[in-house]
């Protein structure tokens, strides 16, 4: 349904009621909250609509629909423009930020002076104090750096933004949450807040409600994330990240293999997704129901979009390990998990259909089981394919591999030649690599669906080739 029509409809309904506007508005909002609605605008246009209603309701009753539309549109467009203007490079905000930074640096300077002075005076001080001081300094420094980067980052994105359409600029409002542009964030939160409040009335929500209540929110975010994804991809396309230009994180083995990554600080319950954790947290008290607590924590910390994080595999000697000569970093935590399980763990999941294929990632098993038995295109190395062109692509890639002719082993074997059999032994490894490639494709597609709910890190699915599939290619001659 078109937005305009909808607004007019609502107005017409108002006529017989003629009730006070505020009451009506809440009712109104709830209607619009309808999770199935796909219009992202709904929540955002609310504030001007409210204002409009309050000021000129009586007038509007007399006017015909067409005439009402005009101010409505104007109002909303103005708002959009306003929002995007704020998003556009705002010199005053920048100045604020800079002066704030200056202050901080001065403070830090003072602190260091103080430390030096004290050092000179007292010699026999315990080390504990020194350590505390150091920590203080580093903490301050990091916060300065983050501020600086975020300031610079806002400038960067605003340049991009001028090129993008108004809708995407709206979407971006969410991206720059509170920190840099408090005003715009405020606006957004205003719009989002009532929704969440409505959803949170259920004390301990099961997953389904969790999703629906978040839905409108997620849809907003979805746009944001898509946009982010594009940005990220743009950056990735030319990705030949020089060593040192990105931050390398290395998770420990236990961390990687842990079933849950997000834990409730109160009851200790573990969750795979932080969104689920946040929903869970609401049950622990009202302070977790605020929009701030319910917003994506990654949003706030990712207010520095230019810091590129890359991950290293903890397995020594692995190409994905940061100490490897030709180190190729992994892009996301999910990549790390899948890579580690696929490459360095036992394959404990066995296909129940063929009883031969083993997997270490359960998703791989599931995708295999979908196609198991359908693979009739067989390579001499033992790998099977569901499609002829995939087999031929494989043969093109690997030297010496040929398509195997069904039943030729049975018939030819007595005659004394079975090049297929000898090849098989040598190239079980190929099996692995080729499977991985196919799995990652499937996964990435499923990731798209999950993406809206999952945290942003997980959203950048391991679509990229270097994460899994062709990495193995060089290792096998």
């Amino acid at each position, binding site marked *: 349904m078109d937005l305009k029509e909808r607004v007019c409809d609502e107005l017409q309904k108002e006529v017989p009621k003629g009730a006070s506007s505020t009451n009506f508005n809440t009712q109104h909002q709830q209607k619009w909250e309808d999770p199935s609605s796909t219009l992202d605008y709904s929540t955002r246009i609310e504030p001007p609509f409210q204002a409009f209603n309050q000021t000129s309701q009586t007038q509007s009753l007399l006017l015909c629909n067409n005439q009402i539309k005009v101010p409505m549109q104007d109002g909303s467009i103005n708002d959009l423009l306003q929002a995007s203007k704020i998003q556009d490079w705002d010199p005053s905000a920048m100045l604020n930020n800079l002066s704030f930074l200056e202050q901080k640096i001065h403070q830090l300077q003072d602190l260091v002076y103080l430390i030096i002075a004290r050092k000179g005076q007292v010699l026999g001080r315990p080390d504990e104090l020194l350590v505390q001081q150091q920590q203080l300094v580093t903490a301050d420094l990091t916060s300065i750096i983050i501020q600086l980067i975020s300031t610079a980052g806002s400038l960067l994105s605003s340049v991009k933004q001028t090129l993008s359409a108004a809708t995407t600029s709206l979407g971006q409002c969410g991206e720059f949450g509170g920190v840099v542009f408090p005003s715009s964030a405020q606006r957004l939160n205003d719009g989002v807040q009532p929704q969440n409040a409505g959803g949170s009335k259920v004390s301990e929500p099961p997953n389904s409600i969790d999703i629906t209540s978040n839905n409108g929110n997620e849809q907003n975010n979805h746009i944001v994330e898509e946009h982010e994804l594009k940005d990220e991809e743009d950056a990735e396309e030319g990705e030949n990240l020089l060593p040192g230009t990105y931050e390398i994180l290395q998770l420990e083995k236990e961390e990687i293999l842990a079933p849950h990554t997000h834990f409730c600080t109160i009851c200790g319950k573990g969750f795979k997704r932080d969104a689920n954790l946040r929903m869970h947290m609401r049950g622990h008290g009202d302070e977790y129901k605020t929009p701030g607590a319910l917003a994506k924590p990654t949003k706030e910390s990712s207010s520095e979009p230019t810091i590129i994080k890359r991950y290293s595999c903890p397995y020594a000697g692995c190409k994905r390990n940061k100490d490897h000569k030709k180190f190729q970093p992994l892009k996301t935590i999910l990549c790390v998990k899948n890579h580690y399980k696929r490459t360095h763990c036992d394959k404990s999941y066995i296909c129940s259909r063929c009883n031969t294929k083993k997997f270490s990632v359960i998703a791989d098993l599931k995708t295999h089981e979908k196609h198991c038995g359908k693979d009739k295109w067989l390579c001499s190395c033992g790998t099977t394919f569901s499609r*002829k*062109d995939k087999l*031929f692509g494989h*043969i*093109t890639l690997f030297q*010496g*591999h*040929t*398509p195997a*002719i069904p039943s*030729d082993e049975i*018939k*030819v074997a007595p*005659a004394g*030649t079975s*090049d297929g059999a000898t090849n098989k032994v040598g190239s079980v490894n190929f099996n692995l690599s080729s499977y991985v490639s196919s799995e990652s494709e499937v996964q990435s597609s499923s990731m798209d669906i999950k993406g809206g709910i999952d945290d942003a890190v997980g959203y950048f699915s391991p679509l990229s080739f270097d994460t899994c599939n062709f990495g193995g290619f060089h290792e096998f001659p």
Partner: protein
Amino acid sequence: MLLKPKMLSFQSSKNVLSLTEDLLVRIYELLAAESDRKSFRLVCREFRRIDSLTRRHLRVIRIEFLPILLGKYPRLQSLDLSACPRIDDGVVSLLLTRVGPGSNSPSLGHWAWGLKSLVLSRATGLRFSGLEMLTRACPCLESVDVSYCCGFGDREAAALSSAVGLRELNMDKCLQLTDVGLAKIAVGCSKLEKLSLKWCMEITDLGIDLLCKKCVDLKYLDVSYLKVTNESLHSIASLLKLEVLGLMACPLIDDVGLQFIERGCPSLKVIDVSRCEGVSSSGLIYVVRGHRNLLELNAGYCLSELSTALLHQMKNLNHLEVIRIDGARISETSFQVISANCKSLVEIGLSKCVGVTNMGIMRLVSACINLRVLNLTCCHSITDTAISAIAYSCRSLVCLKVESCNMITEKGLCQLGSFCLLLEEIDLTDCCGVNDKGLEYLSRCSELSCLKLGLCTNISNKGLSYIGSNCLKIHELDLYRCTGIGDDGLEALSNGCKKLRKLNLSYCNAVSDRGLAYIGRLEELSDLEMRALHKITGVGLEAVAVGCKKLADLDMKHCEKVGDSGFWALAYYSKNLRQINLSYCGISDMALCMVMGNLSRLQEAKLVHLSNSTVEGVELALRACCARIKKVKLFAPLRFMLSSEILEILHARGCIIRWD
């Protein structure tokens, strides 16, 4: 040449024996014709030893002798088994395990070690296990021909792919071959330079793509008649060494695909896009624009008109030697452009072209003086003027085809006989202007080897006698429906044209037994068509059977008066007969059984409307030959009268039955 040693041996036998072995080998190597070599090895034991030591090539006609022959020739490099399609896996395994200098010696199968070339065309009985044994036994194999092996499929291809040194491979009409088999070949034989895949209908773009990626040395690729699309051309365009590309009658290829060829295949010399429905002149423009050094362009039956844009591009083809634009509309001015720019043209094909006039031909030949082959079939408006111009300008003309050019008379032939003394082949079928006088002029071309005079009703024995006395090199003569030809003409022919191999006498009603007796003198004759000669009887056929020892193909449909004595003779003497057409002949059951059972090389027989034979007779005859017959044509109602057993046996043996 061949008389020399004989003469020497007569004068003083010491001289011959004193010749050292290497000198004898040199003499032997100078003998080109197979018949000369045969005479050489019949001189004495020493000569035969030389023959067996130096012989490189062997073409076997009878599989029975194969084991002995292979044991005799240790230096064999090339073996042609296309004439014995009965070869199968069992024979191969026998040859490899039993044939050697001494039985049970370690060098068993030694003959295969040096073998480089193997022709297995039509060897339908050979399957993967036999091929596998062969490829394993022949480590030096470079060239294999398995064309028309209907059973050749992926598994056979897999067996063949272990011949890693393979450079040339012909797989025409291997109907069972799919992309998988081709992939086997492509991966296994990566040194392939020449590959022909005509009529391998199962091959798709995927196979071609893989082939082009794996066999980068390909110089010759023929994918004619395949259902491949422009995708394949995209892959083919990446072949840097490709010189010859055959795309004949590929229905799914169009101008867009040829655009890839424009940018790829930098070494391309020869391209054949004839009968490609999707290709138009704009596609050819792409090809011509990208390949200035093209030598051969074959675009028959795909152009409706030789457009000016294409002609404009063709100006750059200075090296072009062969162009065929059969079936296109062509204007007189285009001849001018071609002759002015393509000066090195050697062959022009203008068969069934519309707009070919005397003026056009005169303009064409004025500059293209190197022309050797000219095809003007069905260019009806050609007259003696054009022929004279051709004869005058193109002195080195070798082949001229003017079928159905009715306006050619003895004047044109006079010019040809005066100037084109190198002429070897001329097709005058359906040129009713040709008469005895014309043949007299033509007989001055003493190099003539192929003469087609079908439907020239104005020639008589007299004209044929000129040919017989002057054109001694003729090996193919077509006298189809030359009703003026009689026994005297054949007498003259048999006196002169001793090399005649192929003769068509169909519907020459005047020919009688006496004429066939003259035919019987032609020892080289292998192919005789004599349909509907109502005068001939068993006597004539007997003469032919006795005389023409090499007869392999005999068509005597509607020779109703030939009696059993002739067929008995045929069964007894014509041991080399491979194909026979006995339809509408009065052959009896006994004679039929004899013919079919006794002729051990017989592969194809047409046995429709045999008035004197019964169902039982046909059944017996089929039983007698079921082990070797490959193709048989039978009267349709017999399908239900013959026992199902014999039909099953024939089917199991791979025999194709055509019901008429």
